[in-house]
């Protein structure tokens, strides 16, 4: 078995009085497309924010790429952040920059590549996610929802991360675009061997893309493993979740 890329151990999180995660543990292995599932409000986004250093858990430990993320110094944290890409639920493209500039931003900031190489890289990333070069010159406000998602994915891929986090990438897309996006993710994993962590509700993309998953409910992980494993588990939430 390969080494885990993400190790979550005994994580508990509370917002004031309200307990969101109660002693949760799971592993994500290299090359997997891993799903964080569960009904709305059960702490999927919160778990993802804890992995990517946006929110600290109250107890427990989270290791990403072999580093315990909440024990890192500022400098190491910056280094680690460069090794993953994140696509937020609302794409979060910088509205004052064109798509090309959004993608080039990290390269300009963190590498000393020449401008002509950066242009090539940007063009390749656009191509990889299926956007045209003229789309690259547009501003986020001039893009459709699906194009924004693709642009955000291209931005997340800019630094060639080994690890990709996607928060509900296909919600708010029509079924056709959602299916397209799923194929895109599969082909990226195929081509680049990425490890991809996805928060999702979308049954079609759960079936199509996920290798393994955990299902959150009642502050715990109530099922884990492949889709078959999860479906075999007896729990009222599982029935309602997969019969939506």
């Amino acid at each position: 078995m390969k080494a885990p890329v993400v190790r979550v151990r005994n994580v508990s999180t509370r917002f004031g009085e309200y307990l969101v995660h109660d002693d949760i543990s799971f592993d994500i292995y290299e090359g997997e497309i891993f799903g964080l599932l569960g009904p709305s409000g059960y702490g999927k986004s919160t778990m993802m924010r804890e992995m990517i250093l946006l929110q600290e858990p109250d107890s427990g430990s989270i290791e990403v790429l072999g580093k315990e993320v909440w024990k890192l110094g500022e400098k190491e944290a910056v280094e680690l952040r460069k090794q993953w890409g994140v696509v937020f639920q609302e794409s979060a493209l910088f509205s004052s920059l064109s798509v090309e500039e959004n993608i080039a931003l990290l390269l300009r900031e963190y590498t000393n590549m020449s401008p002509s190489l950066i242009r090539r890289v940007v063009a390749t990333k656009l191509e990889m996610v299926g956007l045209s070069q003229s789309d690259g010159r547009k501003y986020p406000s001039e893009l459709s929802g699906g194009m924004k998602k693709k642009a955000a994915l291209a931005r997340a891929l800019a630094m060639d991360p080994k690890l990709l986090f996607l928060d509900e990438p296909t919600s708010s897309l029509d079924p056709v675009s959602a299916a397209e996006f799923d194929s895109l993710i599969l082909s990226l994993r195929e081509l680049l061997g990425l490890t991809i962590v996805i928060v999702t509700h979308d049954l079609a993309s759960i079936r199509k893309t996920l290798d393994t998953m955990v299902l959150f409910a009642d502050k715990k992980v109530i099922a884990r493993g492949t889709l078959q494993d999860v479906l075999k588990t007896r729990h009222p939430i599982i029935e309602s979740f997969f019969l939506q």
Partner: protein
Amino acid sequence: MRQTENIYIGFKEKTLFCLGAWLTPNLGLVEKEFAKLVLPSYEDLAMDLSALDACDVNGAILLHALIERLRKKKITVILYNLPSEAEHLLNITRLSEEASLSAIRAKESLFATIGAGAYRVYLGLTEYLSFSGQLAFSLFYALRYPSSFRIKEMLRSIQEHSIKALPIVLLTSMLIGLVIAYQSALQIQKYGADIFVVDMLVISVTRELAPLIAAIVIAGRSGSAYTAQLGVMKITEEIDAMRTMGFDPFRFIVLPNVLALMIGLPMIIFLADIMGIAGGMLAARVELGITVLEFVGRMEEIFNINHLFVGLIKGPFFALIIASIGSMRGMAVENSTDSIGINTKASVVSAIFMVIICDAIFSIIFLELGI
């Protein structure tokens, strides 16, 4: 191969060696090393990739770019010992080879920059004309159908943008009156013409200073607020929502704001006149020993009511400038957060500038009329 400096690329016996980790953070160095290499113009060149430890997509893109650069110099490149990983990546990047070349943008020439600037000014003017047209239309509409006018909005706008602005405007005006009187007292004293400080103060405050100060403070405070409010409403699509419900934003937001300020600003100016003179009175008392009674007596002698009207009549015009530029800039906001900042700044700067130009025009008119 030189071992110390060259860690990524080396040249020996017609062979280019690529080595080490061609990963995103190192690529800038790889480029620099390649630039330093002195490559003889062989007809063909071998490229040995056996020592390439790691290579990511961006590394493959660079490799591709380098090969292309050599080929342009009519050098044939033959790849040896390609690790399977790199071969795979090269195939991905080959796809976008053509596309990336077309993406290179030309640099603008000086003339193009000047031309584009002039065109923007022209666009700004036409934009203002079209805005004024819509504003006039909504005004006539309101006159024709008075019941459609949003009187409540207007009253709220007076409260928000005129009454709440009073403390800062009045304080500024008083301080300016005080400073003017104090400064001129120092000069006038030398000629023993102490009492003339009253003439100078009263006339300059009522005709020029109070209207200008009020307009400038209001442009900074309320002009920017109009722009930001409308701008955010545009970004959050509230303006579009209003339109689809049949609420014309001009009728519901812009016209009430403009009229409110046209009513409010003359009142502000009137109060600023009083405070400016009061400030001057204080300085005259302290510095020249002119009592309040003496001051008022002198004022009665010299004061012509025209001075007051000259100042007040500017109010509605300044207000029109400030409120319409502020609203126009707000409507010009486009779908980005940057755009709000740019337009707010432009709104304040151009409103103050236009107010001063307008003031100069008034001076000429009043001079010709002999008022």
